[in-house]
Structure formats: C-alpha cells, structure tokens
C-alpha cells in the first residue's frame, strides 16, 4: 500500500461518511432551508468524488451547474412558497415506517445483487490513466461527433429539452394580470 493509495483511501472514507451523514440530515430535518443546504453539501462532496475518479471537468460542471444553479433554484422555490418559516410536521407513523422499510429493502436488495454478481475488475492500466489527463478534449470531441460512438443527436435533443422546460416553466408560472377573471373551478362533465 503506497502512501498515495493510503491517502486516497482515507479521503474516500472520510468523504463517504460525510456524504451519507449529510444526506440523512437533508432528508430528516424539519426546516426545508436547512435540508437544501445539506443537499448542497452532499453535491459538493460528490463533486469531490468525481475528482477522485479523475472526472475533473465533471466535478467543475457539478459544482457550477448543480450546486450553483439547481440548489439556488430550490431555495427560490422555498422562498416563493413561503414555507421556510413553517415547521414541517413529522410524517404519519405508518408512512414513516413504510418509507423506511422500502428504503432499507431497496438498499439490501441492491447490496445483495452487487455482491452476488462478479464485477470482474478491469485493473487500472496505464493506457487509461494518460487518457484521463486530456479528458475535456475527448469529451468535447465525442459529444459532437456524428460517427459511431458520438452523441451529437443526444446533444441536440438535450438542447430542445432544456428549451421546452424553460418554455413550460414560463407558461405555467407566469403571473396572470389582475384584469382577467380568476380561474374558476371547472370540471369536464
């Protein structure tokens, strides 16, 4: 065990423990704002994981987009719906236990499956490592290439998806000018 590996392992365990602790807190806290913050913590740690798995560019994107964008959006939502002050009450006994059992069940099943199937390890060989260094260029090239392995089509589809979500967001949440009649409850017969 080289020193470097030792440090690597130490980092892994520390970060893993923190991630799981923060996740549990995010899920359990009563105040919604606090849970958003905990979520931010988990995301940052996972960015660190990405670095450990030498996906540096991804870590950057994660921090920028995920933490910067989505979490902020979550906070806005909390502000807009004025639920930050309101203390969220505990879920009913049954729902809680049921949820717990399902969560634990899921976890045990996945563990059982993981440890029963033989994931033959592809040892880290040299070729992979140097590749990792210029990963951004490779990602960029693969992203837009139209040959066999490329994802140009997916890229275009993603752009449309984002456009639609923005359009949808606007349509659904735009303010109705006070002039119009308030939306009356209508049922189709």
């Amino acid at each position: 065990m080289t020193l470097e590996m030792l440090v690597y392992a130490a980092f892994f365990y520390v970060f893993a423990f923190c991630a799981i602790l923060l996740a549990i807190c995010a899920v359990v806290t009563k105040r919604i704002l606090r849970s958003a913050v905990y979520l931010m913590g988990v995301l940052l740690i996972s960015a660190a994981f990405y670095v450990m798995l030498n996906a540096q560019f991804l870590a950057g994107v994660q921090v920028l987009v995920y933490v910067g964008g989505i979490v902020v959006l979550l906070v806005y939502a909390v502000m807009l719906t004025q639920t930050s002050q309101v203390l969220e009450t505990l879920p009913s006994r049954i729902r809680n236990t049921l949820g717990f059992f399902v969560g634990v069940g899921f976890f045990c099943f996945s563990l059982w499956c993981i440890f029963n199937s033989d994931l033959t390890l592809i040892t880290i060989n040299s070729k992979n490592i140097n590749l990792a260094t210029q990963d951004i260029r490779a990602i960029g090239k693969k992203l837009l290439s139209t040959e066999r392995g490329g994802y140009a089509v997916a890229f275009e589809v993603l752009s449309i998806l984002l456009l639609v979500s923005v359009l949808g967001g606007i349509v659904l949440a735009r303010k109705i000018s006070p002039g119009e009649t308030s939306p009356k409850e209508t049922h189709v017969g």
Partner: protein
Amino acid sequence: MLASIFNSPYFYPSIYHWLVLSSALFSIGIYGFLTRKNAVGILISLELCLNSGALNFVVFDYFRGNHIDGKIMALFIIAVAAAEVVIAMAIFVGMFKHKKTIDVTEMNQMRN
C-alpha cells in the same frame, strides 16, 4: 492491528465500495421521497437519487467503461435534472397559488 486493517485487500476503495456508497445515497433519497411532506423536500431527495445515479455512471465508467461515455452521461443527467427541477418548481408555484400550501398530503382532491 491498525496496520492489518490498512493492508487488508479490502481496505483500498474498490468498485464495490463505490457501488455501496451510491446505492446508500439512492436509498436515502428514496426514503426521503417517500416520507417528506413538503413538495420541495421531495424534490431535494429526488436530486439526491439523480446525483447518486450520475455517481454510479462515473464509477462504472472509471472501473469498467471507456472513461468518456460515463462522464458524458453524467453531464447529461445534470442537465436533465435541471430541466426537471424547473418544471417541478413551476408546478409547485402554480399549486401554491391555489392551496396556499405545498404539503403533498393535502393534495388528494381526486381520489378513489
């Protein structure tokens, strides 16, 4: 004794460790999804799940894949998550206008 732990073959974080970690996160996400009352809380736990999925992809990419596809997939997952959150937020806000609360348990006007 400590040394023995450090040198044992299972100490260094192999693929199994990563997978356990990501499925732990996923399970916590699911638990959160099933028990939080606040709609945003549900969203948060969903983000947890998606993030653990992305992590899973990167892990598999690192250990078994060709070191690029997994990352691209993670990238796309982040983008899609963003799109979802936008739409979810819009609907929550719309919901809030009517019910003055986004407590999911009260939204059962249509049932049986």
